[in-house]
């Protein structure tokens, strides 16, 4: 028997495809944002609020990842935004090949921004690069302030954390200082945007940050 030293990342092929996506996006001057969250945190609501806030400035496209159903894509399509639904057929995350296929169905020459809604899950999406420029994690008040410690890898690679459903704070034991300490403990420079997609509170501040990030990437 012969022993072969390999020492190669198991997800190396995915990383390679993610790099190809990134090149394709940059060739078309598209900035891609990957949204991750637990199920029900409000990813789709945040996407809709973000589209509303930024659609006058940028041409936006959306990729919706779900294990099954096209409910989210239909909701976005009603806004007149180009959207591709990816049904992962059981897989709990999007991967770079799925994004590559989705890009073929989108009018890439006519887009400035691609918002990617990953599958609702904070474990598996952490392992699969897509080619995105920024990672945004959507957390919500009812999930509790200890969430960062349950999903440290995803939190540690997120550039921003949107804390949704702050209108529920009077009813829930949620310690925002503890949440902030946990998020910034795992990633020093992570920014936290408390919002309520229901009342619209905080959306301006969040959208203003995202606008700046898009402009930074566009000028690179």
């Amino acid at each position, binding site marked *: *028997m*012969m*022993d*072969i*030293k*390999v*020492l*190669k*990342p*198991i*997800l*190396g*092929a*995915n990383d390679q495809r993610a790099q190809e996506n990134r090149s394709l996006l940059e060739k078309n001057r598209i900035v891609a944002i990957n949204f991750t969250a637990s199920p029900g945190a409000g990813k789709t609501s945040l996407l809709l609020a973000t589209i509303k806030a930024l659609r006058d400035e940028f041409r936006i496209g959306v990729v919706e990842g779900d294990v099954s159903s096209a409910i989210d894509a239909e909701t976005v399509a009603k806004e007149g935004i180009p959207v591709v639904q990816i049904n992962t057929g059981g*897989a*709990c*995350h999007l*991967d770079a090949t799925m994004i590559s296929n989705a890009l073929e169905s989108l009018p890439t020459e006519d887009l400035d921004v691609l918002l990617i809604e990953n599958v609702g*899950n904070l*474990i*598996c999406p952490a*392992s*699969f690069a897509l080619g995105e420029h920024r990672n945004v994690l959507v957390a919500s008040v009812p999930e509790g302030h200890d969430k*960062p*410690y*349950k999903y*440290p*890898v995803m939190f*540690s690679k997120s550039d921003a954390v949107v804390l949704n459903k702050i209108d529920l704070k009077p009813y829930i034991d949620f310690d925002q200082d503890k949440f902030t*300490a*946990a998020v*910034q*403990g*795992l990633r*020093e420079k992570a920014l936290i945007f408390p919002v309520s997609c229901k009342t619209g509170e905080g959306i301006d501040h969040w959208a203003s940050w995202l606008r700046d990030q898009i402009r930074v990437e566009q000028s690179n």
Partner: protein
Amino acid sequence: MHELAITEEILNLVLSEASKNNAVKVKDVKLVIGEMTGIVNESVAFYFNEISKGTIAEGAKLSFKRVPAAGKCRDCGHQFVVKDFIWACPDCGSLNIDITAGKELYLESLGVI
């Protein structure tokens, strides 16, 4: 919980490395997996057994080297193994911790004929 997708990537990598080395049979597959990847050894072994059928890796023995989660305190510089998923510095109590190990996911070596 994402073992099937991971195992498919493992099999692809195993077969491509085996083929580069003109192997006719893969006997051993040594994997290194960090504790923070959330990957369960038994589940990978189960899927591998199924999806490798009919390939030169069918029947290969998988072994797993698990890497514990580790962190480095940004305040006092202490490096430590994370126990019971407590992300606080055991020396100074700070919550400002950089993850330094536990995310590993690679194929270390193959035993082939």
